[in-house]
């Protein structure tokens, strides 16, 4: 099977800092992949390169067999790469409905979905449990609901690859359980790339885990393999083995 996403020798420097340093990465269709690593390991920079928010210093990115390295971010979204923000950035002054209507009308314009805007919006809001708050300004939703709205916007883009950047940050435990369910559902129709610090969430959701450290991939494997990997424990968990 051909990978959905491949990066070859992907690098990005900020001044002298090599935030992402020669990363070779492959993601199979349908999998849930977690990306973990200590702060500053280059995880967010890596997914920003994939989504096109920043341009790489060198290397190539291949999505579904096509080289997308030089495509602007909006064109990658139209190919089916959706990015949900680490810091919640819903349109605070627009209603939840309008927030979701923007991605829905985009997929309609691109003929990647059919039907009326209203149907698509309500479907995405119902799937994330936000239908009752449709007309509320997004900025007045609770923090947990704003995170869900981010996911609803990502879903409404009909992604083939959904990138979730620390989606459970700031959520209550009860909300996290619902969230895990939601990501499992999403994975039925999309490939999920998940940056996450919450290890129980990672262990429950991920098919495979990629560990970043200092801009490079330190290890990759199933949750069990990663749990047992001594190098990962050193870098990420900070434990020493004497």
């Amino acid at each position, binding site marked *: 099977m051909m990978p959905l996403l491949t990066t070859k020798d992907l690098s990005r420097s900020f001044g002298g800092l090599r935030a992402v340093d020669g990363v070779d990465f492959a993601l199979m269709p349908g999998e849930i992949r977690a990306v973990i690593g200590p702060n500053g390991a280059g995880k967010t920079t890596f997914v920003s390169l994939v989504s096109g928010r920043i341009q790489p210093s060198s290397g190539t990115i291949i999505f579904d067999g096509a080289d997308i390295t030089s495509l*602007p*971010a909006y064109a990658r979204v139209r190919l089916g790469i959706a990015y949900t923000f680490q810091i919640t*950035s819903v349109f605070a002054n627009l209603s939840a409905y309008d927030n979701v*209507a*923007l991605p829905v*009308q*985009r997929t309609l314009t691109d003929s990647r979905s059919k039907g009326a*805007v209203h149907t698509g919006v309500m479907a995405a809001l119902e799937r994330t449990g936000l239908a009752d708050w449709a007309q509320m300004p997004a900025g007045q939703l609770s923090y947990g609901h704003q995170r869900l709205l981010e996911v609803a916007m990502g879903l409404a883009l009909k992604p083939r690859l959904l990138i979730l950047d620390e989606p459970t940050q700031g959520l209550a435990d009860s909300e996290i359980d619902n969230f895990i369910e939601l990501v499992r559902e999403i994975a039925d129709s999309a490939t999920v790339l998940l940056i996450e610090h919450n290890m129980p969430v990672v262990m429950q959701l991920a098919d495979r885990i990629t560990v970043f450290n200092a801009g490079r991939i330190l290890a990759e494997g199933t949750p069990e393999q990663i749990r047992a990997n001594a190098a990962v424990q050193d870098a990420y968990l900070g434990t020493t083995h004497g």
Partner: protein
Amino acid sequence: MKDASPAKPYALHLGVIALLFALSFVLPEYHHGLLARIMVLAVFAMGYNLLFGYVGLLSLGHAMFFSAGLYGAGLAVIHLGWSVSAAFAAGLACGALLALVIALLALRTSGVAFMIVTMMFAQVFYLVILYLAAWTGGDQGMVVPQSMRVLVLGSTSLDLTNPTVRYMSALALFSIVLLISLAIVRSGYGRVLVAIRENEERTKMLGYDTFSNKLAAVIVSGTICAGSGAAYALLFGYVGSSFASVQYSILPLLWVLLGGAATTLGPLIGTLFMYYVIDVASGYTSAYLLIVGIALILLVLFFPKGILGSIRQRWLGWLP
């Protein structure tokens, strides 16, 4: 923008148009003429509002789009002897073309730089008008001959110097532009424009080419403002360089802020309010600008979102 029934906003807008129509038959001569002028300038404000209110791009150079229409139409009549409808089309075309060129250059900037760049281009435009005095009349301006201001529609010809014809022509232009703005604002495109105003980076990450959307908005805005300028030349018969000065870039900003940015009827209310405050105040004192200034300060204090913007915020959430 809201997912509410469209009946209310359309009823309100058609009601406003009907009211303006009825006013034509009851207003005394002086106010009749003033209102015709206000409607034409409100079109200018509506064009400005589309860009400033909805896309959040503050231009300080919209006088150049107004005067592109003014001179485009005026010069076509005076020098080329074109008919009124051809001259109006020429005015629109000049505005659209100028807006395209300016947008391609100015949209490389944003925020304060966008204000400065648009203002600079408008100054260039103003100086070019003065420089080409042989054709434009320089700072004296030009009068469009009365005999040329006749609109021929099929077999009927309308004399645009007749007050009623002038009023109705201004109302027709105003109504068309008002309904176009309402349709834009309620469309998916309007939603994208507001999204760009609120968070451009996020809008890109939803798959929108924000540059193209902004480019289209500048062109629509510039063309509407040019329509206002062209109508002004043809209805009121004066083509002057003062309309290209920086004052006429700031006036639409004031009108829109007064009436309520990002409201469809705000530009009309703002223009109307400003004209009548000046009109009434100058009847009492030569220091009327002082009264205008105080009125503006009071408005900013108590209606920070403009007259209609504050009404929408406090009472009528459905206002478009």
